[in-house]
Each structure stands twice: as structure tokens, then as C-alpha cells.
């Protein structure tokens, strides 16, 4: 059993790495031009020439998925990076900045957590205007409160540790105390959460694109591809099925990697409980 799970983890790491690699070199591997319209070749099923078939405009679905990785994955990474930055800042200030500041910041955080992020992002994206950039900004602005909560808890746990007290007694400056002694230890657990969030953010981004708020039509973003192909579901299922499988495979891989990091990071999780 243990061995089986470890094998799963190794495969997950490999798939996640493969997806990241595809996002970098995908276009080099793409057999066709992802934007080349060829109406004579429209809605062809999977074949040797087009492994994943062609869409309603005769574009090669496989090539579009390969290009799409360059849209979806970087957008996801930007959202998580921005949200982590804001969340860490807010969480650290809340944990160290005194009771009043803590109360104010945590109530603001509550507001962010008080709505499903897809709804808040939908509203923000609508206000900012459609497009992938709006979706990314909107999502980053709605995603940070979870990290702020987490970082606040982590920093509060660490700040009274003996080694921090010792450093404080030795006269270490406040900034150095925060950046060298408190944050590095507190943030150890944060990267596990960010890895686990890759799939969730990716699903929301593709969801926003699917409903028409994120990436717009000719884009090879996976959610937008599914939306464009949905009208031809029965006579061109492959143009819907394969981009969805790409999303799912990537999400599963990142979830497994996140799980693996979590177990590795936390010796108290007993074998088999996770």
C-alpha cells in the first residue's frame, strides 16, 4: 500500500512536471498552427493527422491544447503569486501589528472569505471589462484572504517561539526578526497550500473563460476552447472532451504533488490518514 501510494506520488510529480514543461515548449511540439482556420477540415474526429480531431473551424485540437497550456498555467501562477504576496503582507501585519490593526485586517479578510470566489471574481471581472487580464486581476483580488488567515495563524505560532525570543533578547532589529526569523519558518507551510490551490485557481480561471468573462474566443485557453466547442457537442465531442481532460489531468497532478508535500512536511500525519 505504502509503495503503491509512493508510486502514485512519483507519477503525479512527473505529470505535473510534464505539464509545466509543455507550457514552456508546447508550441514547438504542436503538429499544426493552433489558429489556422481550415473549414474544409472542420469537425474531423480523432485520426492519425489530427490526434484529438479538429474543431468547428478546422483547427487542430491537440495543437490548441498545447498552446493553451501557455495561457492557463501562467495565468494561474500569476494569480497565486499575487494572492500569496498580498496575503502574506496582510497576515504578517495582522499577526504582529497589534490588536486593533489585527481586528480591522481580519474583518476585511472575512469579507473576502464571505463570498464564493467565483462570484466575487465574476462581479469584479464584469466591472473591469471582459478579458483574461481582468479575470486574473479579479481572481488575485479575491483569492488572498485565505492566505492572509493562514499566514496570520502561522506567524502567531512562530513569533513566541523560544528562538525568536532569544533573537529578540540579543537585540536583533525588528525587520530582521520578521524577515530572517519569523517569516521563513512560518511560510514553510504556506507553499503546501499554494500547490494545492493551483488546481482550484486553474478551475476558476477556466470557468470564468467558459462563461465568457476570461480569455476571449479565438484564444486557445482551455475553458474558452470548451465554450466555443459546446455548441457542437454531439457532432464534435472531441473538441470539448480533450481540453477538459487536459484541465483535469493537470489539476489531478498538482493536487497529488500538494498532498505529497503536505505529508512530507507534516510528520504528525499518520500513514494512511491523509
Amino acid at each position, binding site marked *: *500500500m505504502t509503495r*503503491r501510494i509512493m508510486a502514485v506520488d512519483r507519477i503525479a510529480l512527473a505529470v505535473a512536471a510534464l505539464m509545466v514543461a509543455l507550457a514552456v515548449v508546447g508550441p514547438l511540439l504542436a503538429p499544426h498552427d493552433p489558429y489556422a482556420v481550415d473549414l474544409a477540415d472542420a469537425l474531423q474526429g480523432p485520426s492519425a493527422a489530427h490526434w484529438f480531431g479538429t474543431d468547428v473551424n478546422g483547427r487542430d485540437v491537440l495543437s490548441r491544447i498545447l498552446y493553451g497550456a501557455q495561457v492557463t498555467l501562467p495565468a494561474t501562477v500569476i494569480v497565486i503569486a499575487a494572492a500569496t504576496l498580498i496575503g502574506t503582507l496582510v497576515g504578517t501585519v495582522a499577526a504582529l501589528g497589534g490588536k486593533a490593526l489585527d481586528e480591522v485586517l481580519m*474583518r*476585511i479578510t*472575512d*469579507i473576502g472569505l*464571505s*463570498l*464564493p*470566489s*467565483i*462570484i*466575487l471574481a*465574476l*462581479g*469584479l*471581472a*464584469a*466591472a*473591469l*471589462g*471582459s478579458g483574461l487580464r481582468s479575470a486574473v486581476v479579479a481572481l488575485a483580488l479575491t483569492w488572498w484572504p*485565505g492566505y492572509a*488567515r*493562514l499566514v496570520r*495563524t502561522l506567524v502567531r505560532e512562530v513569533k513566541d517561539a523560544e528562538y525568536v525570543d532569544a533573537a529578540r533578547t540579543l537585540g536583533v532589529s525588528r525587520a530582521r526578526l520578521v524577515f530572517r526569523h519569523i517569516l521563513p519558518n512560518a511560510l514553510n507551510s504556506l507553499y503546501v*497550500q499554494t500547490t*494545492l*490551490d493551483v*488546481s*482550484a485557481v486553474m*478551475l476558476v480561471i*477556466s*470557468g470564468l473563460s*467558459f*462563461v*465568457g*468573462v476570461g480569455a476571449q474566443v479565438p484564444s486557445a485557453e482551455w*475553458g474558452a476552447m*470548451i*465554450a466555443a466547442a*459546446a455548441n457542437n*457537442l*454531439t457532432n464534435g*465531442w472531441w473538441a*470539448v*472532451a480533450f*481540453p*477538459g481532460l487536459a*484541465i*483535469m489531468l493537470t*489539476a*489531478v497532478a498538482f*493536487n*497529488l504533488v500538494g498532498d505529497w508535500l503536505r505529508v512530507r512536511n507534516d510528520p504528525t500525519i499518520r500513514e*494512511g*490518514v*491523509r
Partner: protein
Amino acid sequence: MGRFLLRRLVTSVVVLAGLAVVTFLMTQVLPGDPARAAAGRNATAEQVAEVRVRLGLDQSLPDQFTGYLGRLLHGDLGTSVFTQRPVLDDVAAMLPASVELVLAAMAINIAVAVPLGVYAAYRRGRAADVAARLITLLGAAVPVFWLGLMLQLVFAAQLRLLPLTGQLAFGQEVPKITGMISLDALLSGNWAAFGDALLHLVLPAVTLAAAFVAVVARTVRSSVITTLDSDYITLARSTGASELRVVVRHGLRNALVPASTILGMQLGWMLGSTVLVEAIFGRTGIGAYAVTAVLQNDLYAVIGTVLVIGVVFVVMNVLVDLVQLWLNPRLRQAGSRERRPEIAVRA
């Protein structure tokens, strides 16, 4: 306990006020002239000017916000440019269909996730557990809108077992009582329509539930495992209690507290996820309404939906806390410290 409730209520009011600020800011960041946006694309110059005065857009920002807040408190969410009706009326008309869908999805969620979690815990490490882990893994990774389309393809278009879209077959009619078609059919004793409405609910409800099953099954599994490893379970077993009794009575009971927290919060998340599901299945709920509103640049309709879902979400959170108090007597004595587990999984 009274102090705890009071604190929760105050927090909820603060959150709602914050929501009002956020939605007010949304009306401000809109590029271009908000008066023109509110009046609609085809409005004349006089109409735009009239809207500007009516919405107080000629006033200072704080005054505008006070006006906005006052209108919200009076239930005035503005007028939809697209439907030309008050947003509150639109949302009130759409909400029942969404609530119906969410409740159906929640029923499926509980019926699948709880037994799955308990069984996986009981057969820990065996094939059934691995299978359960696989199901939860896929559930957490599947794009709901894609799952909806795939289910439509297989069960409606190919196998023709279930209806493709809509809420009721053509020709069936039910009186409007609650607005939830299945419930209205039941209340009016129209069994044929009731069955038909349920058939129309199956695919969208399964689609909506899929992402949530994973989280609940995982939570139930790990709390049942923790319970099954404890001394009193060994004791219960040694007294000759049947396995079923040990697992269900003791194991499941302890899983109820964390599971109910998550299930309660999920009701709010599910309402949010309707934006990804309703349009695919041609259901006229607030999710579909919000999507149409976004695509039509109907800002007040979008904001109205955001506000209504936000209010539902806040109310749900208070209810979840009340249920927690009821299920877990220890909390009643505890002070006012926060005690809800941090829920890391978002949908």
C-alpha cells in the same frame, strides 16, 4: 453562548457592510460613464442626465455611498438594463430554481460522500479505499462545466435516458407556489410533473455535486479513522458490539461535527457554482442570470446577484455556527475565540 452569538451577529453585519463597500467600488471602477452604463446603451442624453441625478452621480463620493447604502437597505438594487425590471424582482424570480438545484445537489452530495468516507475509513488501505481516494481526487480536479457537457453527451444525447436541458417537459404545467418546480408539482399533487421535474434535475445536480463530494468524503474518512483508532472503539468491539454498530454509531457520530460544518458552508459555495452549471442545462436560476448579466454589461444585475449570494452565504455561516453549538456542547462553554476549522479547500 449569548456573547458568542452576539459576536457572530456583529461580525456578520460588518461583513455585509464590507460587501456593500466592495459592490459600491465595483460601480466606480467601471470604465466610462456609470450613468450611461446604468441607463443603457441606447439611452438618450436626457435619460442619461436623469439617471445621473437619480443615482446621485453628481454628488461627492461619500454622499454617493450613503445614497447607495440607503437604496440597498430599501431593497433597491437598481434596474436591469437588459430585462428593464428591478434587479431585486429578477433575482427573487430566479432564486427558487437555484435553491432547488442546490438542495438536490446537496442531497446527492450527502448520499454519496458520507457512505464513501465511512467505507473508505473502514477499509483503510484496501482496494475500496484506493478507489475512494481516486474518486475524490477526480472530483476535486474536474471542471464542473465540462462534466456537465460530458454527462449531457452520454446520458442525454447518446443514451437518451435523461432530458438534455430545461426544467420541465413541454406540455407539463405546474402552478407557481414556491417557484421550485418539483416542490410545486408535489404540492399541487401533479405526480407526472413531479417525476418529470426530478428527471430534469438529475444531470445538473450530479454535475454541481461532483466537486463537493470529494471534500466531504475526505473529511468524513479522516475523522472516522481517528475515531476507529481510539481506545473506546477497542472497548466497544471487545464488548461484542457488531462491526456495523461500531462503525456507524461511534465512527459516524464523531464525523458529524466536522462534516456538518463543511456541508453548511458548501451550500453557499454551491449557490456560487450555479453560474457554471445552470446555463449549460438551460435552467433559469440566478447563476444563469448572473452570466447573462455579465455578458450584457448589465452591471447592476451582476452586483445584485453578488449581493444576494453574499447575504445567503453570511446567513448560512451563522446557521452553521448555531448547528455547531447544538452538536458540540463543549463549544457552549468556551469563550468567544474563533473555533471554526480553517477550510482550505475552495470550490
